[in-house]
């Protein structure tokens, strides 16, 4: 315990997350020893690809401060999956499906960015509005029906497994996290994002183009949600209009749990990655124990409230 107490910042968060993760796995093992096999690990990584991408976008938007939050991520995932599948039906060549999906996400995210930076609407209201517009459009355009017809070559990528690790996880989630980590830690761009989040006024005074950077970050969150939509298409074989349901709650929980300060300026992507793993392990475990999926949203919500309160309490104890 003493060593944990001496840890600070990111190291402390990673240690705590690892501890929680081990507890979750031990509890699951006691309740149902057959849970953990290589197949389960593959399933967990497969599920976590979508959440990891979305949470990364959420994390950088929050990190950049200015009351930044993206409540529309789930809507972007649903709508970009649906829009690109509808475009395919209208005659888009199938090899253009991946770029179309990601571009759709980028456009929807950039629209959020314009609302927040150019029209200075509070991020929580702007993205709450677009959340309902995007997820509503995904449902209304399809009447709630799944859109089938994903080209088979995409399924090979989406369902492929390389030595127990799903191919989308290897080719999209890991590179995005690695790039984000490097950019945040070692480039001027990364320093700018932390500076904006830490003290926006000072950031403006030293000449950081705060608005342009924030617009790009909302666009980036859209790109990542679009990529998550693509992964869902390639994995499930169809575009589901409700695929993004509850992702805003889960990605926020992952970002908070991963040590991103809600007011911005503090936190790193490593913690977010660990938090995603923890969340998905928990969810998959519950699924294996035949707990109804409706419990998931409650447990994730309770976890979010718990993390927020724990963050507060830990400041009292110091």
């Amino acid at each position, binding site marked *: 315990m003493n060593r944990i107490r001496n840890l600070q910042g990111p190291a402390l968060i990673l240690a705590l997350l690892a501890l929680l993760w081990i507890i979750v796995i031990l509890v699951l093992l006691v309740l149902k020893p057959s849970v953990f096999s290589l197949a389960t690990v593959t399933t967990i990584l497969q599920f976590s690809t979508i959440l990891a991408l979305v949470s990364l976008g959420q994390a950088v938007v929050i990190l950049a401060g200015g009351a930044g939050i993206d409540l529309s991520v789930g809507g972007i995932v649903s709508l970009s999956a649906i829009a690109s599948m509808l475009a395919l039906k209208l005659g888009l060549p199938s090899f253009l499906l991946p770029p179309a999906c990601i571009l759709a996400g980028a456009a929807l995210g950039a629209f959020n960015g314009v609302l927040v930076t150019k029209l200075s609407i509070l991020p929580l209201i702007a993205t709450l509005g677009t959340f309902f517009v995007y997820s509503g459009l995904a449902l209304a355009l399809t009447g709630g029906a799944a859109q089938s017809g994903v080209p088979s070559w995409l399924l090979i990528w989406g369902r492929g497994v390389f030595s127990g690790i799903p191919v989308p996880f290897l080719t999209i989630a890991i590179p995005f996290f690695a790039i984000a980590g490097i950019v945040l830690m070692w480039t001027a761009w990364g320093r700018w994002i932390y500076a904006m989040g830490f003290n926006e006024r000072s950031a403006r005074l030293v000449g950081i183009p705060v608005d342009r950077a924030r617009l790009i970050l909302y666009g980036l969150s859209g790109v990542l949600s679009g990529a998550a939509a693509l992964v869902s298409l390639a994995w499930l074989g169809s575009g589901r209009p409700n695929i993004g349901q509850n992702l805003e709650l889960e990605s926020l929980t992952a970002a908070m749990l991963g040590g991103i300060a809600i007011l911005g300026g503090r936190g790193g992507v490593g913690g977010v990655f660990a938090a995603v793993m923890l969340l998905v392990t928990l969810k998959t475990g519950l699924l294996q124990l035949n707990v109804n999926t*409706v419990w998931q949203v409650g447990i994730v919500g309770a976890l979010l409230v718990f993390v927020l309160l724990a963050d507060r309490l830990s400041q009292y104890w110091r």
Partner: protein
Amino acid sequence: MNGREWSLLIACILAIIVFSVASPYYATSGNAGTVLRNSIELLLVGLGMMLLLAMGGIDVSVGVVMGLAAIGVGRALGAGVDPVLTALVGPLTGALLGLLTAAVIVLGRVPAIVGTLGLFGVYRTAIFVLLGGQWLSGLPTGLTVLLGTTILGLPVAAWVIALAYLAVWIALRRTPFGLHLLAIGNSEEKARLSGIPVVKVRFATFIVSGALTGLAATFYVANYRNVEMTVGSTLALDAIAAVVLGGTSILGGKCSLVGTVLGVLLLRILQNGLLLTGVPSLWQPVVTGGLLIGVLGFEVLSNRLSLSRLGWASK
């Protein structure tokens, strides 16, 4: 009435004219009753949301709070509890949940949007567990007096809503509580420094908003006599959209009661009209969300163009 409220009133009238031309079913007295009956819950929930936004807070869990309170009311109704007590179950449950929300948000010093989103998840599961995967349906008619009976020519519901608005108006304009609430909305830091009991006022506002949401649940059960799994799924958006349309600032410190009423009516008139002109109900969240963003965006642009100097844009 200021410019914003006049433009809302004109928008309501325009919408009614357009829909009357577009659909033969629209301009009937039966439909007017439907629009008003459908506005009851939103008028009450919107009033609570207006107070929260004016204080610089927000609550995205109002829909599920209403759902939980509705389950309480429905259960009491089904068990044959005295109708007066049954009607009180709603506001009491709501107030208790408001207390819980306040404890998390105020004592935990958690941003309201994130905290209530977490509670939203918890309450959603609670609704599922309490209902056990089934609808609460075919409830007795014990509460229909709330909608059917009239006093001095107005239904009980109208009196209750009028009293709630009057009470809030008095609290806002004639008591220190209202002054404190708006001061916190303007700047929490300055309010604290000037000796305003910030924690108490914030607690009280969350509890009042919860009680109003619970009251809405009583009317919901009286109106529909069932509670389904997805109860209140777009209520939070509707409430925020209506209140913001009404001219209440999302940054806090400014609110409008007349605007809230007109915002609710405009929203419900639009939703009802679109349904009657054959637009599927799946489009409703798109329209509401679009309206919210559109109005806020338009407001910023019109201010930027300094139209206010010409005297025909809302301040």
